[in-house]
């Protein structure tokens, strides 16, 4: 099966600019996640979708971050305006149904550098 696809792989922007990341999950996976991973830390959940509805966005900085999952398949994560502290790897993951025991399948992430 094809894995989780993310693009772009790398992005460099200046602070206050905007940026968008794209994710295509594994076919048939109902649950989609966006994680932020700062260097040397574990991934931190930003937002979780079940189909096209938001399950958890409690750690999403909603004044600058937004995400959508149209038609319950692909998803985009946007940052506007970016800050220096947003420099991180943004990981997209999907799971079959989001149950507690469902393993997550991750993409290889987008590395964002904000200068």
């Amino acid at each position, binding site marked *: 099966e094809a894995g*989780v696809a993310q693009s772009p792989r790398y992005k460099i922007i200046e602070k206050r600019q905007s940026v968008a990341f794209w994710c295509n999950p594994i076919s048939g996976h109902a649950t989609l*996640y966006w*994680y932020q991973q700062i260097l*040397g*830390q*574990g*991934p*931190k*959940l930003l937002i*979780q979708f079940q189909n096209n509805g938001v*399950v*958890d966005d409690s750690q999403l900085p909603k004044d600058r971050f937004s995400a959508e999952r149209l038609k319950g398949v692909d998803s985009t994560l946007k940052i506007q305006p970016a800050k220096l502290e947003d420099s991180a790897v943004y*990981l997209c*993951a999907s799971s079959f149904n*989001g*149950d*507690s*025991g469902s*393993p*997550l*399948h*991750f*993409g*290889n*992430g987008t590395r964002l550098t904000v200068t």
Partner: protein
Amino acid sequence: SQKIEQNSEALNIQEGKTATLTCNYTNYSPAYLQWYRQDPGRGPVFLLLIRENEKEKRKERLKVTFDTTLKQSLFHITASQPADSATYLCAYTGGGNKLTFGTGTQLKVEL
């Protein structure tokens, strides 16, 4: 609030030895603990899941234990190889089926 802690210091071991990585949690026993492997520049890859009522789970050279008394999970790699060098992350499922990760422990297997 629940915290999950992994040793932030890298673990260096010799090829052929057993690597043991530790994951501690602070409060309630999570229903599930998952272990992932992450290579540089790649996303985490799922390895094993263990349920609260399971003491031990095995998969090939990998073994995970779950001790609710000690509030700890141990991850073992037997007969370690240089190819096992990576960062290993543990994660627990909390409220709302939210998966929370530890900071990971870097393992380096030397010849």
